[in-house]
């Protein structure tokens, strides 16, 4: 077993346990967005970053394994400031707070963030939305690239990220094909986990 400290509490964990798993086991709440239990960690939203003593940068709790003697703080000023800025990034990228999922809005409230102080100009061509299917609708400009749909998709070759920087997009299939032309079975797992409505059921 590995001995370490989280927020002053001395804890023990088996090697390979992530900081997030250990924290949750002891009712220490670390906010997450891209993390889906039981799925491979994506570590893209970075909201779960925690401070490790002796390290300048922060570490994502969802994919950082415990190590002996680690001293971790989950709610230091640095962590909270970072999460606040990241939350503003998410709101700006999505284009507002009110259409985000209730858990994400609750997290924003908890962090004291009610709006983004900047706006991002949408970069996607209008036809970037045409690649949905009869059952699933894609609205590219709402996407915050949290990767939850990618993690939830049972067939890992259906949902992808393409493009770079401001032009980062959600695409289907390995060559950006319409969703209907992929092996998608419209099971709706991706829609269920999407916190933005970028993927939704066709009305």
């Amino acid at each position, binding site marked *: 077993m590995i001995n370490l400290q989280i927020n002053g509490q001395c804890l023990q964990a088996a090697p390979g346990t992530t900081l997030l798993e250990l924290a949750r086991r002891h009712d220490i709440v670390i906010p997450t967005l891209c993390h889906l239990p039981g799925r491979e*960690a994506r570590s*893209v939203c*970075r909201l779960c970053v925690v401070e490790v003593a002796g390290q300048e940068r922060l570490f994502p709790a969802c994919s950082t394994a415990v190590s002996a003697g680690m001293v971790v703080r989950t709610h230091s000023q640095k962590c909270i400031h970072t999460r606040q800025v990241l939350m503003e990034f998410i709101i700006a990228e999505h284009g507002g707070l009110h259409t985000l999922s209730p858990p994400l809005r609750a997290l924003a409230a908890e962090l004291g963030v009610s709006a983004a102080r900047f706006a*991002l100009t949408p970069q996607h061509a209008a036809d970037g939305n045409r690649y949905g299917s009869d059952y699933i609708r894609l609205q590219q400009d709402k996407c915050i690239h949290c990767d939850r749909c990618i993690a939830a998709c049972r067939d890992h070759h259906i949902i992808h*990220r393409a493009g770079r*920087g*401001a032009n*980062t997009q959600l695409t289907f299939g390995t060559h950006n094909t319409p969703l209907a032309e992929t092996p998608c079975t419209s099971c709706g797992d991706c829609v269920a986990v999407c916190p933005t409505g970028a993927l939704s059921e066709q009305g």
Partner: protein
Amino acid sequence: MPRRSPPLPYSVRSFYAAGEEPDGKALIEVAGRGPSSFAAYAAGGGFRALQRLRADGNAAEVLRQIYASGLRGCGGSHLPLARKWQAAMPYAPRYLVINGLEGEPDTFKDYFLLRDYPHIVLEGIAISCRVLGVREAYLVINAAYHECHMALEAVLQQHGAWFDDLAIHLLSGPEQDLYVVGEETALLNYIEGRRGEPRLKPPFPHQSGLWGQPTVVNNVETLSWIPILLTDAARFAGRHPKLVTLLGDVAAPGIYEVTLGQPLCEILQQAQPEDISFVEIGGISGGLVPAARLDVAYADDALAPLGVQVGAGTLRVFGHGCDPVAEMARALEFFQAESCGRCTPCRVGTRELARFARALQDGAVSAEDIHWAHRVAATMQHSSTCGLGRAAPLPLLSYLKHFAEPQDD
């Protein structure tokens, strides 16, 4: 400084003119200097180190000499090579990946080595493979360096006997000069045919790298120093040599061999700058430093208080009349286009900083905006997945530190 024997690099002073492409790799114009011949290299003492290692098989002695030389990673990490290898060896590395992408704009040191000294590069690779116990190496070369690729291919075909027991694969980098593929784990993804975006670390490449196998990733320059340190120990006696790309408003742009810790002014003088207004230190992911602050040693610890680093060793000189704010904004535009888009702090942060830089250029920022820019920069530095996101705010931070805020002294 240049030496006669063995005929190793660095006698060339100035040989190219770099165009000024705003985004992506600058075009290279070569003054028609072909690669040195295999015969000349071998006659001048080349391949001695490899020959010795093949004869006695004493890899431990080579590793000891690398350790004693203090050779550090020249791609920008500056981690001691021997320590990196020692960490990898318990995992029995399967592949050696050599990063010749040189994605840092205005950097040509690897180009110089690959074009003019392909034999040193290949000897370095062969020695490294033998020390690491690796049979298969992948050398990924910037797609713009097509002629280097051909030259290396020719050497491998004609003189394959030197590399008989090794499979050295030459790969061309991405056509679109994807900066982020220079990151080691993104490079592994690229070789595997995946999207060129960084992987999460850990696992580190030496634990699980190319196709899930233990892999060592090194820069071209790092490995090229190995045959040199093994045959010319004096070159490393009490010093760490480094190739720098010196260009901009100078009379003699080129690749220079310098010593880490050497006075920066002395290094810059070699390229005969006409007049210096400011210098971009460490390439586009480095920062801008005004002429008045250049009285420092060229080493990471001395440069740190200025908010810059040695990085891949690129120094760009700007004469009077150049506008630091424009250069800074150009760097941030570059990063916003080159972010792979994977993690939130880098994807959104680079866009927001680029917007701030444009506002700064227009003179339309308040003290509150500057405070916010610092917060965005700190968030990127603290929470980005890879080095791109962590380095992207540096041009802005160095600009604010040296050009926009009241000076301490």
